[in-house]
């Protein structure tokens, strides 16, 4: 399937489609517009990386997909989340629960706090198999050991009886992945899975995710703020800023020629081997307050290419090249290398 047909196809009914999602957080200080029309889709066997700073809305989108958004303060004010064409936001609580874990599974940033401290790792994996699949205690234990083996936890047979605090950071994330795979989900959402880990362990976990995803022909949404993590594993990248997707593209083209000044700025702020000793570039200014998002293009106060139109008009979605989307008035200029 070509990139173009993924972005443009309507009829095929993708594995997951997020469509014009709007979410607000109603707080004492005012209404924070956390998501302002987020759309993306993921096909089976595809890895979509969702990139953005803290507060850009990447995790909230994932939580809305999973149905684990805290409401209140969160309110979904518009949009759809379609899983095989079925709008989950309109589905019954029972149906949503069915989809969780078996259709769409999720792993979190901090595996230590995401795992229950008072139950063994085995119990937490087996619980899925026993409660959701009605497996016997013995079969579930056998399967749990297999799963731990698959995520390459050594001595799985003994490890299955241990508690999360007896695992190292990397092992905990592996256990978390094993748990998420228990019901063979079609889509895995990984919310900053490597942020809390050492660099060497990060690479191992990314390799593991990549391998599992290929093996199972599973869809993968990889949420991260780390461009370095994304480069090797992502098929496509969606860049988020202030609750919007500002650029969507296949990974290779995005790195070669970013179609939005924000993406450009992110790439410029990466450390580079050929500029050893030089100061790292940073993006000037702060992310906007979601209670008071700037008029026009939300990135305009920090944008080096800002012009008058940016201060007044919200940029529509441009298609500067086949299979690419950019929410910049000057997307075409950027891509053609002005």
């Amino acid at each position, binding site marked *: 399937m070509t990139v173009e047909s993924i972005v443009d196809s309507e009829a095929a009914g993708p594995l997951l489609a997020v469509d014009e999602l709007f979410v607000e957080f109603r707080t004492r200080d005012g209404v924070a517009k956390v998501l302002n029309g987020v759309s993306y889709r993921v096909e089976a066997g595809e890895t979509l990386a969702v990139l953005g700073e803290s507060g850009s809305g990447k995790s909230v989108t994932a939580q809305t997909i999973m149905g*684990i958004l805290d409401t209140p303060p969160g309110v979904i004010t518009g949009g759809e989340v379609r899983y095989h064409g079925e709008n989950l936001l309109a589905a019954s609580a029972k149906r949503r629960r069915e989809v*969780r874990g078996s259709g769409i599974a999720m792993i979190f940033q901090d595996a230590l*706090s995401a795992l229950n401290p008072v139950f063994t790792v085995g119990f937490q994996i087996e*619980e899925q198999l026993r*409660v959701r699949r009605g497996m016997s205690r013995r079969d579930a234990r056998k399967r749990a050991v297999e799963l731990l083996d698959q995520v390459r936890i050594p001595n799985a047979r003994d490890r299955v009886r241990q508690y999360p605090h007896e695992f190292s950071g990397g092992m905990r994330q592996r256990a978390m992945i094993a748990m998420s795979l228990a019901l063979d989900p079609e889509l895995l959402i990984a919310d900053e899975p490597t942020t809390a880990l050492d660099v060497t362990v990060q690479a191992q976990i990314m390799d593991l995710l990549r391998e599992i995803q290929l093996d199972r022909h599973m869809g993968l949404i990889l949420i991260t703020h780390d461009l370095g993590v994304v480069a090797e594993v992502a098929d496509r990248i969606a860049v988020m800023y202030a609750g919007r997707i500002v650029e969507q593209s296949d990974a290779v083209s995005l790195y070669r020629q970013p179609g939005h000044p924000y993406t450009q700025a992110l790439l410029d702020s990466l450390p580079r081997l050929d500029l050893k000793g030089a100061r790292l570039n940073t993006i000037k200014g702060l992310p906007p307050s979601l209670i008071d998002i700037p008029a026009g293009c939300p990135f305009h106060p920090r944008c080096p290419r800002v012009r008058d139109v940016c201060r007044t008009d919200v940029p529509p979605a441009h298609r500067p090249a086949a299979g690419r989307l950019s929410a910049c008035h000057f997307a075409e200029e950027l891509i053609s290398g002005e």
Partner: protein
Amino acid sequence: MGRYVLRRLLQLVPVFVGTTFLIYWLVWSLPGDRFAGKCGEKPCDPTYIAKMTEKFNLDDPLVLQYLKYLGKLLTGDFGENSSEVAIGSLINEAYPNTLRLALVALLIEAVIGLAAGILSGLRGRGFVDSLTLVSTLFLISLPVFVTGFALQILLGYELQWITPTVTDSPAPWGQLIAPGFVLGSLSMAYVARLTRTSIAENRRADYVRTAIAKGQPPRRVVGVHLLRNSAIPVVTYLGTDLGALMGGAIVTEGIFDIKGIGFLVYDGILGKDGATVTGVVSLLVVVYLLANLLVDLLYAVLDPRIRYD
């Protein structure tokens, strides 16, 4: 774990000796003539005084008296009181009543306290939460003798739902419900508040979110994942409280005329009966220390992150 238990048991020895000596010393050095009033209106006759002095080694220095007493105590002999009744048999008669009362109180505070705490913790701000907070504050502010007499008058004399005092020994379970409520009311309020805070804190914990994201049924998310973690401080509190409840409730037993340990101690103090008081309180020290040890061990079972060794 085994070594920890052994160490804890060994620690009990000095604590036991220290506390019992303190009690012995306090009780036997009470000022005043300890034979005053023992023999009715007239002074006791010298043969009785000589016998008692002999029996309690009153001519020895206090430390020696204590050591002789301790020696007998360690063989399980509590001695006799000033009316020459074996204290061991008094305790045997009284303890079942106290134990029953303590269990009823514990059951009431655990069931009602936990239920109120879970409900208000889960719901958050709202009617149930306010009701729990106000009613528990009310119970905490009331002294036990007020709750006790109020319930006795209301339920016992006005409505006549209960017998105002417990009539038999061992006390029938049914008659212990109202006294148990009185005795447990304060702890019930604490349990409710402790549970409420614990649930409210853990409700938004990451592992609860994980359990929801796994698609586990809500009953399991709350009943297994949330409750198991929130129960840790509550169970610890209940365990310590059981130790305290088994120490007898002087006020509650007094109001409802329950012939329990509290009653025995109270009688002993009034009658300046040193042997009874020392014996019973020494026993309570052991019960309390063992209950605390059990709680500490239970804590490690409930929370696998805690290790002794």
